[in-house]
Structures are given as structure tokens and as C-alpha cells.
């Protein structure tokens, strides 16, 4: 079985879908001849030609808007944001036009908007964002954020096939750091809306996603070794719609929940998850639900500063210990 990076898995997923379905095309800045800022679409232009691999002007609102229009007509566009931080330029298009299209006009808008997301890469305030919360609040959008190579592939394929708009947050810290054996010839489709059990445990549940799944797993190993406690790590994979069932069933199993995300605390998804647990599983809890998130600041550039602001493995360990001792 060939070992495939997260980035390569994402690439393969798009390639397979473009091979399978002629209505799939991709548009974005520098994605054609150049192959994308991170080479995610390297070779796509040669394979599919300029009518299906479209280099666009620097116009995020037009990229998303045009994708929406094409989608109404039966095409399945993948719109790349060169960095997900620039999705803010298409915020209006996504939240007002795209997200409401089905509800208000009965229009299908099967688009995927994807781009390199997240921090830990010394990218400074405008190349490090994980802007999931900005879209989580908008009914009509689906949000996915894979942690593994398998899901990078499985979720992009599922997102392309989904009949509703999906924002796909791919973590650039994971691009080349995460590898996995993926069988050739197997169709990998990760169902949207379903969490993944990343590690079984009995004493505490960590609900997390994307790059922080790996930090949570590291923390879990350390706690297992040093504290003899077994942490369960639930990788949400899809943020919207959220897999409440998986969250509640793990909550009922371990009775302690820690939510870990790299977005800032205030208005972050952890607040919503906490509320849902309170509503559905309060009497199962042996400790308050707590969260490990980024501090409420922009993301600074200097490594020392970024490391301070963003959640680290040691933070998860320390938070987990306090919850276990509660």
C-alpha cells in the first residue's frame, strides 16, 4: 500500500472526482500552470486542460460567486482560496448568497470552497487563520476539517458529491507532516456529518478536529503513561452539521469532556458543543465541560508568540489532568 501524505490524499481525491465526473472543475488563483501556492493542483492543468482548471484574477468574491452560478447550472466547482484567510473577501457571497440559495430559492449550489488553513506555521496574522466559527453560525453551509490523510481524501470526495455547499478547511501544518497507507483502487468516501473515534478511552473525552487531533493524541499517550488514565479522542471531521450522537455517546461513556480547538475561545465552536452537552447529557457529567482554545488575540508571527497564543500539547495534558482530578 502506498504511503500518501495528507496533501497527496487531497490531490488524489480531487483527481478521482474530476476523472469520474466531467461536471467537476476547479478555479482559483495560480492553480493552473503553477499548480497552486502549495502545489495541491500540480499537474491538473495538463491532465484536464484550461477549461476545467481555471486560473482566476485575485477576486475571491467572484471566484465563489461564479462557482455558485455554475453550480446552479449543474456543474460542480471546487473554488480554491490561496489561503483560507482570504475567504473573508467572499464572506458576503458565501453567507448571503450561497448559504441561503436552497432555502429561499430552491436552488442547489453544490460547490466546495477549500484552502490552506490554520496556524503553527509562522504565517503571521493573515496566513494562519482557522475561520471555522465565522461560517459555523450560518445555516446552509457545511463545514469539514480533516485530520488524517484518509479523511483528507474521503472528505474532499464527499464534499464534491454533496448537493449543498461545503467549506473544506485543509490544515497546512498537516500537508506534508501526516502520512498514511492508502490502498489504491479503494474508493474512500468519508460521510459528511460523522465523527471518527481516533482513540478509545474510558476516563475523559477530548472532542477535537483538524491539526489538534494529533496534539490530543500525543497528550493522551502522555497521560496514559504518566497518569494511567485513558483518554478518548473524538475527531469531529465535520463541524457543521455536527455529530451530536458521537459526542453524547462518548460523554456518557467517560463522563468528562474537554473540547480542544485552535480557533480563539470567544465565539469558538467549543461554546456550542458545551451547550449541547449540557442540554443532552448533563446528568452524565462528573466534571464541568472545559475547553482548550487559542487565546483571544490575532495570531502573532514570532514563533515564541504564536506558540504562546495557540494551544499546545502541554496545555491539553494539563487541562486533562485537572479534569481527571475533578
Amino acid at each position: 500500500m502506498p504511503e500518501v501524505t495528507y496533501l497527496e490524499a487531497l490531490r488524489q481525491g480531487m483527481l478521482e472526482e474530476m476523472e469520474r465526473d466531467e461536471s467537476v472543475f476547479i478555479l482559483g488563483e495560480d492553480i493552473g500552470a503553477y499548480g497552486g501556492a502549495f502545489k495541491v493542483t500540480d499537474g491538473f492543468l495538463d491532465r484536464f486542460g484550461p477549461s476545467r482548471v481555471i486560473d482566476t484574477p485575485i477576486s475571491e468574491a467572484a471566484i465563489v460567486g461564479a462557482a455558485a452560478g455554475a453550480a446552479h447550472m449543474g456543474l460542480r466547482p471546487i473554488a480554491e482560496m490561496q489561503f483560507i484567510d482570504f475567504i473573508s473577501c467572499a464572506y458576503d457571497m458565501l453567507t448571503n448568497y450561497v448559504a441561503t440559495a436552497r432555502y429561499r430559492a430552491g436552488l442547489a449550489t453544490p460547490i466546495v470552497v477549500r484552502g490552506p488553513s490554520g496556524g503553527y506555521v509562522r504565517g503571521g496574522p493573515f496566513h494562519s487563520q482557522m475561520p471555522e466559527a465565522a461560517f459555523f453560525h450560518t445555516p446552509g453551509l457545511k463545514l469539514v476539517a480533516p485530520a488524517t490523510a484518509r479523511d483528507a481524501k474521503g472528505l474532499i470526495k464527499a464534499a464534491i458529491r454533496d448537493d449543498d455547499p461545503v467549506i473544506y478547511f485543509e490544515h497546512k501544518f498537516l500537508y506534508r507532516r501526516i502520512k498514511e497507507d492508502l490502498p489504491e483502487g479503494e474508493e474512500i468516501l468519508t460521510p459528511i456529518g460523522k465523527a471518527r473515534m481516533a482513540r478509545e478511552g474510558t476516563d475523559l473525552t477530548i472532542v477535537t478536529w483538524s491539526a489538534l487531533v494529533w496534539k490530543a493524541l500525543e497528550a493522551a499517550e502522555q497521560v496514559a503513561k504518566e497518569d494511567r488514565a485513558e483518554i478518548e479522542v473524538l475527531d469531529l471531521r465535520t463541524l457543521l452539521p455536527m455529530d451530536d450522537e458521537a459526542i453524547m455517546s462518548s460523554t456518557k461513556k467517560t463522563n468528562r469532556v474537554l473540547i480542544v480547538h485552535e480557533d480563539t475561545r470567544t465565539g469558538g465552536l467549543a461554546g456550542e458543543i458545551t451547550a449541547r452537552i449540557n442540554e443532552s447529557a448533563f446528568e452524565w457529567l462528573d466534571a464541568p465541560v472545559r475547553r482548550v482554545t487559542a487565546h483571544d488575540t490575532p495570531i502573532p508571527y514570532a514563533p515564541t508568540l504564536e506558540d504562546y497564543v495557540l494551544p499546545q500539547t502541554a496545555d491539553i495534558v494539563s487541562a486533562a489532568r485537572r479534569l481527571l482530578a475533578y
Partner: protein
Amino acid sequence: MATTAKTRVIPAGLSREQLHEIYYYLRLTRSLEERLRNLYRQGKVIGGLYSSLGQEGESVASAYALAEGDILSPLIRNLGAMLVKGAKPVEVLRQYMAKATSPTAGREMNIHFNDLRLGFLGQISHLGDMVPVMAGIALSFRLRREPRVGLVYVGDGATSTGAFHEGVNFAAVQRVPLVVIVEHNGYAYSTPTSRQTAVERLADKARAYGIPGRTVDGNDVLAVYEATKHAVERARAGEGVTLLELVTYRRRGHAEHDDQRYQPREEIAAWEGRDPIERYTRQLRDNAWIDDAGIAAIDDRVSEELDRAVADSENDPVAAPDTVLRSVYLDPPAADVLWFRRRDA
């Protein structure tokens, strides 16, 4: 001086000293970027490194056309403009190396910093966003009846953004004292201008906003100075916005990591032959506005200043997190330290 007989009248009302000063800034910009490249190769630069090689002429000359009190907003290739406005090489070095002593104390990268007192506003990465902001700065000049002017730089690529369009239109219809400089350097990352816009000349866009637009040879330092000066004077006289397209060429990749394989070698070579600094130096020499000793003296000064700037920055401490939570707001003065980092929580 024996050469005075050959001396021609200096154009654009510039003095000999000013010509020398422009040469100094050109040299300073190029040499500072060379120093940065060395530091980058040594792994001392955190993050990416951007170069304005081949564009220093337009950046320096346009900024030089502003007066004290005017404010410009640079983009990633406008190091030269910032230096003209008083940014110090040591600050730039500290920024790139994310030092505690940098103007942003390690919060922001490269030349993303500002000093409004000196007259430059810090950019953000989102292309086009500075145009409306500069329209507002210029609006403040008009509201307060101050004889000040704003100048905003955008690349050919950034003209495709919605913010650029809204900002120029807003400025034009409000007749604020703003100069919009479009640096047409052939590429936006890998995208050639022909795939960015369907207009032949970016200056043509001006017509749609009802403002004058002009295309200028961006590698002709004195032509850029003259054209910008004219636009600045127009703005100061209350006649509104001018759009200047400065035609130049990005001789290095988008950033240092970029192998620029999409830029034909011959194209780069052809533009090397039109180097703005060499061209300007030749012009100064041919007209006897400077002699070899004068050039050598400026080169030496630049070199010494940069030796000192590197020495004064290289070993500075990296930014420490003790103030990282401060000044998200004025009040409250600091963001909370989250519970998992506190002993008491």
C-alpha cells in the same frame, strides 16, 4: 568641478542634493534586500522573504515626490517607499527576524509595520484593502482642510479585488487628495497580467472612475518622480484622485521560495538590461550630476549603515510572550490568560 560645463539642467525642479538622495535610497533598498537574502539563507528570517529587485526605482521615486505630512501605504514590494518615508533598515531587519525589538514586537511580519507620524501606514496581506483605508486618510485631510496628500500602492493583481474598485471609486467621487499607484510588474504570483485583466493598460481603468490615468515607465526614476509629483500637486490643489500605472518588472519570484519557472529567462534578462538603478546612475553620470567619487561615497555610506543595522539586529532577543496578550483593545488592556495556563484556575 571640471565637469560643470557638461552639466545639464536638472529636470522636475530637483536639486543636485536631491538627486543624490534618491540615489542613496535606491542603493539602500537594493542593498538591504541583499542583506536580507543572506540572512534568509542563514535561516535567520522567519517566514517568507519578498524582493523588489528591479522595482526600486518606481518605489523610491514615487515616495520621494511626497512632502512631509503626506502619508503613503506601501505593499510588499515598497520597501523603498518606506525607507524614503523614514523607516529604518534596522527596523526592517528586526521585523523579518521576528525580534522583540521590532516595531511590532514580533507580532507582524516583514515590512508590515507603520509609523503614521513619519508618513507610512502598515499594510495587511489582504490585497486591495489599503485602498479604501487610504481613501479615508485622504478624506480626513480634506475634512480638516489640511494640505496633505495620500498615496496608495497596489500591484497589477490587486486591481482585481473588490476593495480596490470600491476604494478608488469612493475616493474619486469624494474627490479626496489621493494618488493611486498601480505597479504593473507583469505578474501577480504566477499569473501574468493578461490573465488578470482584459484591459491593455491598467491606466485605462481610471476612465471608469472619472479620474485621470497615466502610464509611466516605472524604471525611469525621473519620469516616475515627475509624474507622481504632478499627481500629488493636483491632489493638494483639491483636484482629486490620479491613477498612475508604473510599468516595471518583478525580477525575482513572488517570494524567495518561488522558483519563477513561469517567467521566461529571456524576459528576465531583458529587464535586467533595463535596471532602474543602473539607468539612473548612468543618467546622473552622463549629465555630470554626480561623479564616481560621489557614487562611491554614497555606496560606502549605505554599506556602513547596513553593517551597523545588521549588527544591531542580528543578536537581539526574540520576541517574548509577556506582552502578547496586550492591546487587542485599549480597554480592557489585555486578553485573559486562559485557565489551562493558570495555576489558580
